[in-house]
């Protein structure tokens, strides 16, 4: 009697488990075949010398990684990522915060401004790149045309052709396509700030910057951390807007780790070395994500 009850119970439990797995397995199979397996495959390829066509992948151990450290092109690409991350994160978050604080108490025309600021966010990075490639066009681009029209011909230049200007110019385009995103997320965060605290601070005579520093920014801590992390990771992975405009040029002035990896693996067919670069990129991404997760955990949210 008790035995049979126990057996029925056990079967029922097994059946429950089977149902659970049935929900999860389709996604798990896709994920393992097309994400997890390729990831380990990349590690394997990074230990070989291969051109993508030969039947034999020559195993070379850590040779590719030794070459990485001595590769000035890698370090220049990483330094461009760093510039992109710093300028491309601080600027849109600062603009988003600034506009958010201006608009958060509601204002006539608020919906209009929100619609406009978010407009470029729906565009593909490719479209953003193409638009700004034309904006920067040396002959007919509106930037140079305007400069010439107001007599500042000296400032007109081939913006994307000048190795010192090309990267900041692309970051400026990236900020154009992205600050609206930061603005909307920060606006959502501002809705959760306690108005009574602001009123109390007003009564106590706190000025604008003090209210911003002591009440608004602490209140937005969580949102600001999230959006910074999000933007940072975009900066590590940036590819589209650069490839569609300059392909890393002029020279190597706008190459970042993603364009360098793509170029090495698929255009120059150094699959082994390209895979080592891909592992570097994966590691950087992982470290950045990990740092942010630990900061968040420590923040006690």
């Amino acid at each position, binding site marked *: 009697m008790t035995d049979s009850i126990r057996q029925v119970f056990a079967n029922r439990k097994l059946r429950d488990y089977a149902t659970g797995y049935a929900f999860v397995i389709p996604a798990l199979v896709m994920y393992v075949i097309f994400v997890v397996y*390729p990831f380990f*495959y990349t590690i394997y390829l990074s230990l070989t010398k291969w051109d*993508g066509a030969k039947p034999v992948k020559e195993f070379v151990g850590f040779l590719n990684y030794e070459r990485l450290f001595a590769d000035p092109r890698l370090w220049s690409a990483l330094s461009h990522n760093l510039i992109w991350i710093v300028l491309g994160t601080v600027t849109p978050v600062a603009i988003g915060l600034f506009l958010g604080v201006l608009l958060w108490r509601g204002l006539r025309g608020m919906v209009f401004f929100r619609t406009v600021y978010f407009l470029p966010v729906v565009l*593909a990075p490719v479209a953003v790149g193409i638009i700004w490639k034309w*904006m920067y066009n040396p002959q*007919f681009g509106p930037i140079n045309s305007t400069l010439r029209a107001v007599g500042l011909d000296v400032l007109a230049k081939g913006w994307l052709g000048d190795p010192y200007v090309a990267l900041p110019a692309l970051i400026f385009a990236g900020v154009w396509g992205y600050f609206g995103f930061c603005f909307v997320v920060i606006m959502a965060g501002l809705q959760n700030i306690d108005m009574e605290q602001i009123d109390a601070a007003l009564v106590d005579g706190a000025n604008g910057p003090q209210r911003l520093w002591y009440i608004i920014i602490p209140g937005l801590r969580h*949102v600001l951390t999230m959006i910074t992390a999000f933007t940072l990771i975009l900066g590590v992975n940036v590819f589209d807007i650069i490839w569609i405009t300059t392909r890393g040029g002029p020279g190597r002035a706008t190459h970042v780790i993603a364009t360098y990896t793509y170029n090495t693996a698929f255009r120059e067919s150094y699959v082994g070395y390209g895979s080592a670069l891909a592992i570097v990129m994966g590691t950087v991404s992982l470290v950045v994500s990990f740092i942010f997760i630990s900061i968040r955990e420590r923040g006690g949210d």
Partner: protein
Amino acid sequence: MESHVGASYQVARRPRRPARYWIARAVLYGVLILFALYVLVPFMWVIFTALKSNYEIAQDPLGLPPNWRFENLAQAWNQGKFSRYFINSVIVTVPIVLLVVSLSCLAGYGLARLKMPGRMLIFYFFLVGLMVPFTAIMIPLFYILRDIGVLGTYWAMILPQTAISLPFGIFFMRAFFSGLPYDLTDAAKIDGCNDFGVFRRVMLPLAGPAVAALVVFNFMGSWNAFLLPLIYLQSDKLRPVMTGMMFFTTRWGPDYSMSMAGTLIVMAPIMAVYLVFQRQFIQGLTAGAVRG
């Protein structure tokens, strides 16, 4: 201090607006309009230039088109094979969105509400995928897709794009299903529903807004994807809009009016959809940052 309080009460009761108020307002709107122009000027310029002839662009690159040449758009559409590119984009995007959303709902629900050994382990296993950038797997994926024989078909984009979108989808749907009350499932079970019945009849109908956000997020992700089709859909017959656009501008580079018309063709549909479904767009696209 007391006099301060008194003063602010008085302002609240009888709003008298001094000159300072109006100056502050003017500065405020000035700043807001400045940023609006930063956004809008490039759009306006693309539209104006797309509707001029090359001669008119050279004559006056900044002004309004002297003749609004809408035929430029038709010409770019035909010569740029945009109908092909748009159809290709639809053919890959629809299955990707359907697959990502249905697999994420199933797995997200399973991981949130069903009992199974190793549930948290599986969840963390998926979460690691959020941190793996596409670049870290793009190289061997090319050879994997070649070896399973899908290179040269739409599946070469559908399969990997679906897989890389799953970790976020599952994370998002799991968070949503975890937040639903248990009373509902218990009631349905007493009425004789099995687990799948509970999922389909009770939970899924409640998930509307979350599913809508996930649809927008993944639609934009695969419609706008560039690197993935650049590597796996190299044949011109399969090219979606984004890489098609790249080849169009490369080919028509020196022809400004054609290039801008092509840019406008690519931009216009997505802008139109955005202006209609603004709220859903903003919710869907910021879902990743707000809840992630």
